[in-house]
């Protein structure tokens, strides 16, 4: 079935249309995310309350202060955090797949997840509870960046500069090593297992604080990646060809890796280790809109955002008023969805 990738010019030209489509899907997902939830508030009241948030608009939704606070302080930031995290993970996944020219690459390939897992476990185990709301995201961010740097350093010393195979293997080694330490640390205090797993399974309910915390990194990394779509297209024909076209493959790879790793670290910092989004969304996008990174990157951003908003909505309503961990939903719903897309679109990609 693998057919050599054909560089299609069509999708790249059709790009604005796809992006508009992606925006519409995301907007619909966010509206749905805002309307649904465990608290019993009618959609109409949510709409009125949302209108009241707009500047110069003053509408009385008839909601109690607690319910107003609930929408503004819990549901709205939750939808936004889900969108930002989903978008970051998906665009980071697309970036990694482009750099490594490997369909199995995902945002956690280079040790970001295991690095963050280790530092967060250490914080939960060793730091007293009252400072954890701040220290957990900071530790996750530092751990994710640290894990990637370690893998990168290891890959560069072990292999030829700029080679991707050694880098992937270094990522595997770093992941195993850091996971081993993480497991050891969590054994030291078994009673914290529940909190560690809660974090690992992911959560986007951090509120506005988390959104502001992740915002700057999200913006920088997304812009950086979006600017490199064209370069990734050139890289996809091979290093030698790229060089002959005047592109310095190693440098492009480094920049894209930096952007993707920053995006991953930011996402992990606020939401834990949400699986599946980073690997599946770019593939779905490719199937639907073609393989050019000028299309794949922006659409992954939008599609990942919409996907995670919907996954979070499901996590919130399926067994309401209890919640499912979002990581369970992304994999449980995402995997069959992915298979369906694969079967429906037997188009070659990657």
């Amino acid at each position: 079935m693998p057919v050599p990738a054909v560089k299609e010019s069509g999708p790249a030209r059709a790009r604005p249309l796809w992006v508009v489509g992606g925006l519409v899907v995301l907007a619909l997902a966010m509206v749905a995310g805002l309307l649904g939830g465990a608290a019993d508030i009618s959609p109409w009241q949510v709409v009125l309350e949302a209108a009241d948030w707009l500047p110069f608009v003053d509408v009385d939704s008839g909601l109690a202060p607690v319910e107003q606070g609930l929408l503004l302080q819990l549901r709205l930031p939750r939808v936004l955090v889900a969108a930002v995290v989903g978008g970051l993970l998906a665009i980071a996944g697309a970036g990694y797949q482009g750099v490594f020219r490997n369909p199995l690459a995902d945002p956690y390939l280079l040790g970001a997840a295991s690095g963050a897992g280790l530092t967060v476990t250490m914080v939960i185990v060793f730091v007293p509870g009252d400072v954890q709301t701040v220290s957990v995201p900071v530790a996750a961010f530092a751990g994710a960046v640290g894990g990637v740097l370690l893998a990168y350093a290891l890959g560069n010393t072990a292999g030829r500069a700029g080679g991707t195979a050694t880098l992937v293997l270094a990522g595997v080694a770093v992941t195993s090593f850091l996971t081993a330490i993480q497991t050891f640390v969590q054994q030291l205090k078994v009673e914290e297992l529940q909190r560690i797993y809660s974090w690992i399974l992911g959560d986007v309910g951090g509120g506005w604080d988390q959104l502001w915390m992740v915002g700057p990194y999200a913006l920088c990394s997304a812009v950086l990646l979006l600017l490199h779509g064209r370069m990734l297209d050139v890289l996809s024909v091979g290093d030698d060809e790229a060089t002959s076209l005047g592109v310095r493959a190693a440098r492009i790879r480094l920049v894209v890796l930096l952007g993707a790793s920053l995006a991953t670290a930011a996402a992990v910092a606020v939401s834990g280790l949400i699986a599946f989004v980073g690997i599946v969304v770019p593939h779905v996008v490719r199937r639907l809109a073609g393989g050019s990174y000028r299309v794949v990157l922006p659409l992954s951003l939008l599609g990942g955002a919409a996907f995670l908003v919907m996954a979070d909505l499901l996590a919130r309503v399926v067994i309401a008023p209890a919640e499912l961990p979002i990581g369970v939903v992304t994999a449980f719903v995402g995997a069959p969805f992915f298979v369906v897309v694969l079967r429906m679109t037997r188009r070659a990609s990657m």
Partner: protein
Amino acid sequence: MRPVRTAFTGAMLGLLALTGCGQSSGTGTASVAPAPVPSSAPAAAGFPVTVEAGNGPVTIAKKPERIVSLSPTATETLFAIGAGPQVVAVDDQSNHPAEAPKTDLSGFKPNVEAIVAQKPDLVVVANDADKIVTELGKLNVPVLLEPAATKLEEAYDEIADLGAATGNKPKADEIAAGVKASLEKLAAEAPKDKKLTYYHELDVTPYAATSSTFIGQIYGLFGLVNIADKAPDAAGGYPKLSAEFVAQADPDLIFLADVKCCAQNSAALAKRPGWKDLSAIKNGQVVELDDDVASRWGPRVVDLATSVGQAVQKAAAR
């Protein structure tokens, strides 16, 4: 260790297929005590004795003098019923009473060699972690599995079991009856007509406990209505509640069992997104429980019920 949390962690582990943990009594290998040998040492009155524990009938040949407890609840009970002097080692989570001989033994990852090194003639555990019951059985060390109680009756039974097994039956029966009488008295005094609602928080995620759990049944004695009961059974007795649901349900009383672990209190709750207008916070009806007491099922359950009773009186008086 804090058994509510423990039970949950066990479930979590099972879920993740990391290990077969939990309180299964169906191992089929009740630890076999050494047959009562007609030894020269005169057996204390009442021995040998057979106790029906979580791991089946366990026969104890003579009065144990070297008890190892890997269960914080059992440790509390043993000391309460006067078996304290017979206890030689307790696990790293047994922090009450202070005179309990705390060691670095773990009830979660029990190390058979370390346990046997204490030369125990009775081991009490709350979880059959790593098949510890079978392992110790192979070495002819009698083990009592006294799992987390799911009903008050089970808690009374466990006190009585430990009394019988350690030769302190009269005192144990007296304690069990005392606990029962205290709870009934507290419950009788509680104003139940107001149908006050409550939320019992296990951790900041937030995981809660429903009425079907052991702790939930204690609140039930006071006629309180649990907001977590709206969660479907699929969520288990300890559902991860939606923060917005808690906000909208706006319970009259909030009981925190994550005070020691996670530094939670009324002020911390008010800082959570969307929770600052909760009436329990405004009205000073946030009760900081002792995490340990709230997650064990020994005699100190009376302390817990007393805190709950006071909070209910205060809330009803408003």
